[in-house]
């Protein structure tokens, strides 16, 4: 097999690139952050070159970010390095949601139940594992974590038992 063909095949199976609007969007978001930073730095006070104020360094950084983002918006539209969001991106969103719930309830009810549910949801619904192996692996994981963190390392995790 030729090297080029192999290289092609080895390239990760990325979804199709997302086109000029996504490039423009990325550049605009970066520019907005840059401009917000410029405004924030000005409010902090630039001082003088002989006596730099707290805002001088962030100001310089943000000006560079803003200028480069504008250049990106102008010349980067035909780049192919952005990825389309697909149906599997919804999974990622669900995954993030489970993490937020996990972090929110952990201090209230301890780490055992949230960990169990998190692993189970990820295995069964995001990973499409079977019911049996999802239950088995999630219970096994939580038990292993309990033994490792609580019994062996004695780390003060919030917990039920």
């Amino acid at each position, binding site marked *: 097999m030729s090297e080029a063909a192999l290289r092609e095949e080895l390239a990760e*199976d990325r979804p199709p690139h997302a086109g000029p609007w*996504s490039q423009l969007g990325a550049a605009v978001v970066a520019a907005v952050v840059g401009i917000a930073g410029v405004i924030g730095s000005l409010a902090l006070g630039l001082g003088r070159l002989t006596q730099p104020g707290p805002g*001088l*360094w962030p100001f310089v950084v943000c000006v560079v970010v803003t200028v480069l983002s504008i250049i990106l918006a102008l010349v980067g539209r035909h780049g192919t390095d952005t990825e389309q969001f697909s149906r599997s991106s919804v*999974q*990622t969103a669900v995954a993030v949601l489970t993490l937020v719930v996990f972090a929110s309830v952990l201090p209230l009810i301890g780490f055992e139940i949230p960990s169990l549910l998190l692993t189970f949801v990820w295995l069964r619904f995001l990973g499409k594992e079977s019911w049996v192996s999802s239950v088995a692996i999630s219970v096994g994981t939580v038990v292993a974590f309990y033994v490792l963190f609580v019994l062996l390392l004695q780390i003060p995790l919030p917990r039920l038992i």
Partner: protein
Amino acid sequence: MGGLIDGFGVVLEPANLLYCLIGVVIGMLIGVLPGLGPAATIAILLPITYGVEPVSAIIMLAGIFYGAQYGGTITSVLLRLPGEASSVVTVFDGYALAKQGRAGTALGIAAIGSFIGGTVSIIGLTLLAPVVAGVALDFGPPEYAALSLFGVLLVATVGNGSRLKAVIAAGLGLLLATVGRDTFTGASRFTFDSLNLADGIDFVPIAMGLFGLGEILYNLEERHHKVQAPVAVANAWPSRADLRQSRGAIARGSVIGFVLGVLPGGGATLSSLVAYAVEKRRAKEPERFGRGAVEGVAAPETANNAAATSSFIPLLTLGIPANATMALMFGALLIQGIAPGPQLVSEHPDLFWGVINSMYLGNILLLIMSIPLVGVFVKILKVRPAVLAPITVLITLLGVYTVANQVFDMFLVIVFGVLGYLMKKFGFEPGPLVLAFVLGSVMETAVRQSLLIFGGNPMGFFTRPISGTVLVALIVVLALPGVRLLVRRRKEKERV
């Protein structure tokens, strides 16, 4: 020389030996498993380093780093599936050899090459590092300002993907580093009156979020090829003829890897590509490459290990990390209250020489383990990513919580995880951001102190020999692609 010998004493302490072994085994495992790379693994394991002696912690993290280079080779050869970016070129000839029933030869040559490359690099490190550190002792703020700028920009421009985006990412990293109290004036910057942000953002949640969680979220969208049935491994060591054939490739690969590893942004991936290209160009019959040339495995595998080792030089001597993984090492050292820099050799000789010597040992451990354990690694490949993902997520979130018992840190990891995921979706590499974040406060302090030294004249940087040279070199490197483009356009015009 005394330090070198004391360093061996440090490594041979049972605890350190154990951490070295744990490190290289974890490194090999994650090198074998596609998905999580060494940077993600080191990021996820950062909380462990809080509870461990500094020397042991760095020995373990270093082991993960160079162990991963070994592990990536195994999947490249057997499954045509590079576990790491630095093993991609190994696939061309490694898999071809495996199909001819010579997988053992390919793995053996790779292990031997890696060992030699790693060792050559360690010897270079041993000789060169104290010299560089000695010179760097005289560096003042202007030199540090120039060097850190050089490091950040070179890493941003050498990586794959859009350079413009990488520099923007680096800028955002520098901006994030300013959050918190300004050390010069005491003013609160960008804290939005949040008490959690008053002391700035910690390095650990940023690294764990961008590298660890971001990577996991990104991999959730199935992107990887189905794992193929592995090629059977006949336990054939490379023959004498193979060794003779790859002798030159290993020698050249060691040198290429060592040199490119030291340069900012160089590192393992680039050096493996360059070493492969060099061998192919030098070969009398270049058409053999891609069809199972032993040199095609020997050169990149030697080079990537040599580079992995030598990339410690700028970190341990100047305090400037040469790539994203070294930025994590930098962070790990800071966690331990050790500021990497030229004083490291004299102030923490046990750490400096201990870590260097642990690499000798780690390389020997890897050489011993890699061949007999091939069967085990092939079994590990059957572990499905879907099973690994929730477990790594739990380790990440519970891990960051244990650092300071702060729920806020878990949310920071989630926020930076989402940011890392989105950055990858939109073609921004998280590496430059993390590196710039790590160097951010060093750089700002150096720039502001320099301005005071120069009486407010920014051109002062060009009046000192070292900072001036570094900055001019940087301008040349940055301008080069533009100049090349102009020349090409002019030529095209002439043709028309």
